């Protein structure tokens, strides 16, 4: 029922979502930690910047990214000056776009979760002899398990469903930038409703399964915390 191209699109989507999610957890952690601890006046500005993808049409984001990634754009020009290939219409470019697009979905749950720990456990750890990194690893991280679970799932699922940004900066290169949402759009365009149905159903079931997993884990963790 699924064509070979559909399988390629499916595999690409999973690869993109996993890569993006992993990068987001790595860069989102220090950003979220800083936001949850700082009293700096820069905080509101950074928070607003990170939240932008929540309200902007993805095509706007994609358009600006296309401009900066193109050979005349800031990033594109500096890359070609260093002798590196352009990012536009490549998998790497897609990852970069997805990271920006899904950033709030990872940073916000982490920030909320770090903030909800409160200062007291960190102060207690500090008095018991733990330095900043030690405190973060031995106190803040284990107390933020739920935040990480939410961030991982949202980061993954949100990337999986993206369309506008990909369309702008990725185009439709099979195995490179042609992800599930694009493939579905293609099928509908060419009136292949059956194929569109299969892919849409896969996406629907997959998303539901992931969310179901999170919510059932969520309940277990909550119960564990209360016992």
């Amino acid at each position, binding site marked *: 029922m699924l064509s070979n191209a559909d399988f390629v699109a499916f595999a690409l989507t999973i690869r993109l979502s996993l890569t993006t999610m992993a990068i987001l957890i790595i860069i989102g952690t220090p950003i979220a930690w800083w936001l949850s601890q700082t009293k700096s006046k820069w905080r509101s500005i950074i928070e607003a910047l990170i939240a932008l993808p929540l309200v902007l049409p993805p095509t706007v984001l994609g358009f600006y990214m296309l401009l900066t990634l193109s050979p005349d754009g800031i990033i594109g020009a500096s890359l070609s000056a260093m002798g590196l290939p352009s990012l536009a219409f490549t998998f790497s470019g897609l990852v970069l776009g997805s990271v920006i697009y899904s950033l709030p979905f990872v940073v916000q749950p982490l920030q909320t979760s770090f903030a909800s720990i409160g200062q*007291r*456990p960190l*102060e*207690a*750890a*500090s*008095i*018991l*002899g*733990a*330095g900043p990194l*030690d405190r973060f690893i*031995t*106190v803040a991280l*284990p*107390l933020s398990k739920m935040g990480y679970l939410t961030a991982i799932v949202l980061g993954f699922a949100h990337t999986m469903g993206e369309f506008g940004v990909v369309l702008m900066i990725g185009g439709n290169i099979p195995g490179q930038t042609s992800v599930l949402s694009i493939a579905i759009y293609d099928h509908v365009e060419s009136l292949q409703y059956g194929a569109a149905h299969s892919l849409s159903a896969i996406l629907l079931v997959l998303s539901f399964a992931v969310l179901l997993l999170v919510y059932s884990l969520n309940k277990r963790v909550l119960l564990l*915390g*209360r*016992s």
Partner: protein
Amino acid sequence: MINIRINLQKASFHLDADFSVAETGVTGIFGPSGSGKTSLLRVIAGLESQASGLVQVGEAVWQNESSYIPIPQRGIGMVFQEPSLFQHLNVVENLNYGIKRNRITVQSIEFESICELLDLDRLLERNPQTLSGGEKQRVAIARALLSSPMLLLLDEPLSALDKNARENLITYLEKIFQILDIPVFYVSHSSEEIARLADNLILMDGGKVSAFGPIEEVLSRMDSPLIELDEAFSVLECSVHSYNLPHLTSVESCGGGELLHISHITREIGQKVKLRILARDVSLCLSKPTDSSILNILNAEVLDISELKQGSRTVKLSIGGAKLLAKVSDYSAKKLALKPSLRLYAQIKAAALVG
């Protein structure tokens, strides 16, 4: 000596503390809420990074104009008002957290002996969520002590507990303080806790230290702001005298030879006890009342009378040499014509056994 000279400006509050106390024993920090007691402890611990000034404990200078030792390197034990155990670790892991990170000194108190002293053996594998308030604070105290601190800071550790748990924990604290050879700062707004536990006293009011020194000295000073407080109190040293009255124990005031009767206690005759008596629980009469329900009527001599504050005066009395404070209205003071060296009778409505 522990020398503190610090300044802290917060939004609507200014802390300005300057004092020195001995490097031994328990120093009670007493004052009404909002007087800056907790802020003072937090500055000493290093938790208020905006504070300026000097924090010196013995040879160690933790903070002065040019240096600031980070919190983890100060060697402090601290117990907060509300239990602050790590929720993701069980009791024994909580206890080990400080032990593992103690780089400065050798282990000063052994794990086994502290667990025995605080009855923690049954609790070691439990999760903090399953402990009662009193048990949590016992674990928190043990965790602080096991990090081998140079100074132990206790910020109203009993205030989140109910009456029974408080009574229970205070006996544990008395045991601990007997064997501890490091200085302890104990913040409280309860005169009973202070009278029971403290050797030195720091009085705080409006963000300032208004008096400090050995507890007997601070309590008997007439210029001490303590006497203005609603909670003004004195501590009377007595010895157990006899058990002649039903349900009562008679004690004799040291030096004075006056008999007081308190609720039955089980102590040996001749054993020393301390009574805390609130100034507002002491009333004065010129002639000895014979038909009063109040049991404790003592011969007293007026030593001093305080300035008028909010319609009342605090009277310092001598009970055969021992000092006792009484709070009377200005009207009564005039009616009785109170003046130094006047002999009269002090009626004590209530006395709490504090040691």
